[in-house]
């Protein structure tokens, strides 16, 4: 009995081995049939089509953090939703409690999701979801003094003290 049947962990091990073998086969076949003509452009790190600049350890814009935080809000929600979903629609439970179970579970989850949604709405309304693009503004300065005057001053003071307009 023990030796001719797989335990649950044995199945997982089979899956792991199978996954590794499949990936290996795919890589190997690709290597055999593809042409091999490298150039510097091909050998660069793939970064979603962008030119990679700097190291991967560079600092990220802190704005990513706010998005990540709001993501966590809904990521973790799954932890509660998933067990709920497995028992929510069970016929025998609903029948045994004369329908109370279904309404109860539905109301519970609606309250939970509504509070989470309020949190998201809050973040949205407060503008934490807006991705403010860096607004490069060229300083525009209209001087009442004609440019020629500056040049005169620059010439008088020597070049190293030049006033930049």
């Amino acid at each position, binding site marked *: 009995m023990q030796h001719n049947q797989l335990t649950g962990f044995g199945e997982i091990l089979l899956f792991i081995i199978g996954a590794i073998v499949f990936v290996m086969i795919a890589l190997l076949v690709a290597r055999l049939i593809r042409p091999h003509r490298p150039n510097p452009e091909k050998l660069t790190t793939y970064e979603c089509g962008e030119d990679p600049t700097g190291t991967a350890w560079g600092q990220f814009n802190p704005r990513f953090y706010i998005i990540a935080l709001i993501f966590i809000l809904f990521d973790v929600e799954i932890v509660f939703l998933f067990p709920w979903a497995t028992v929510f629609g069970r016929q025998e439970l609903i029948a045994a409690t004369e329908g*109370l179970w279904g309404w109860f579970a539905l109301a519970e989850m609606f309250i939970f999701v509504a509070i989470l949604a309020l949190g998201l709405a809050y973040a949205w309304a407060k503008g934490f979801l807006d991705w403010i693009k860096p607004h490069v503004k060229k300083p525009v300065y209209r001087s009442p003094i004609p440019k020629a005057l500056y040049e005169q001053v620059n010439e008088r003071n020597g070049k190293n003290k030049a006033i930049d307009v």
Partner: protein
Amino acid sequence: MEKSIEVHSLGTQLSEIVESAFFVFPEICLLAFLLLILIFDLIFRQKLLWLFTITALLGLFLTTGLLLQQWSLTAESSEGLSLFSRMIQLDRLAIYFKILICVSAVFTVLISVNYKSRAGSFHLRSVKRIGEYYTVLFGLLLGAMLLSMSTHLLIIYLAIELISISSYILTNFNFDERSTEASIKYILYGGVSSGVMLYGMSLLYGLTGTLDMTHPSFQENIAAAPMILVLFAGLFTLGGFLFKISSAPFHLWAPDVYEGAPTPVVALFSVVPKAAGFVVLMRYTAHFFSQVSFDFPWQTLLAVIAIITLLLGNFAALWQKNVKRMMAYSSIAHSGFILIGVLSTSSFGMLSVLFYVSVYALMNLAAFLIIIMISRETGSEEISQYRGLGEQYPLIGVLMLIAMISLTGLPPTAGFTAKLFIFSSLWEAYQSSDNLMLLLLLVFGLFNTVVSLFYYLKIPYFMFFKKSETTFVADRFSHQRTGRRHDKFYLFDKILAIVLIFPLLILFFKSNWLIDFIHTIPFEF
């Protein structure tokens, strides 16, 4: 066959949950107002700022009203109700603490109305984050109210984390360097201690097979389990509670947080989480320590913790130059005193704990209110800046004097009565158990009361007997056109301070008013 039984009990469970929901109306009310304030914040943005304060106060009054109704409802049933399939225990002890929490919160809101941080970044009259402030504050209150009812380890953990996470955010509400530093220290200490507590809880679960502390199998299995494991599990869990009441050796966060956080928030921290922490500690003592059948001297252990807490708090407070930091150490020392009442485990001990916590809430809120008023005047929280303030503003000086006398525990204030109760309950416990450690604790407690005299009375001493540096005052007022010196204390704050101080005197002469109220609470000992 088994399934049908399970399904059958499900129906009764559901109807029990629905019935239980009627008994947590105060919490539901608080939660509803939390969401309401959040929605107001979305609708009104930065307009109508007074509306938020009014709504918050309304919510707190309504909750308090519902709690008072619960109080009268539970008159007949002596041992309280077990709700949500024994998840929470609604008894008079819980309701008393919940009322205390709500009243303290009302005063906290009133205190914070006129508060202005040093950089002016936290000022409820102009702040754009007022909605967030009240939302997080209500979150903290909700956690504290849950904690005072909980006998189930899961609910205890959830409530403690709700309090903690709200506290971390509130600590940062000055949005300056100091409050940020305070909150990072708070969250790191808090995270570790709650993690350790959780590990202890998981071991308790393994040892007993249940998370419900009131369950008979919890107590049976605790008694049957190997001693060393029970000790580990019990002490780890205890650590989390000690953190919440800022008792040694988990007090390290308190001084930095008290100094860096906004002062109204500090006033709240020193009362609400502490009160809730003591309830859960009392329940834990009743259900865990008292059940440990083998010969473990847990009373001695708590006595040692209390002695260390008293010594650390009082002696560190002596050297402080910042008032808020001094108050932090003072609150640590007070935790030590209340711990004495908890370890007495008699109904008189419980009574003294409840009396002490109530008086402590009043005098701490009063002291912090006056600190806020003075720091608005002098722009500083250093004790040295209190010179001569008593002569300039006699009313404030006298109020501060009474608050400090009460904190020391001298007559004619309620602080004296509270300490008297605590020490007599300890004496009672010593006589019934003959544990020498308790006698030692009594000696240390009395000695520490004398020590605390020095640092508490330092403040009135500076206010009345040190001459003020006139140049400083002249400098501050020179920009005012009138040139006439008039105090800048708001009338509102003055009235509030009198309202807080007055009961301290009343309760000394008429302490049985509160005692009679507390006496109607049935204790489990």
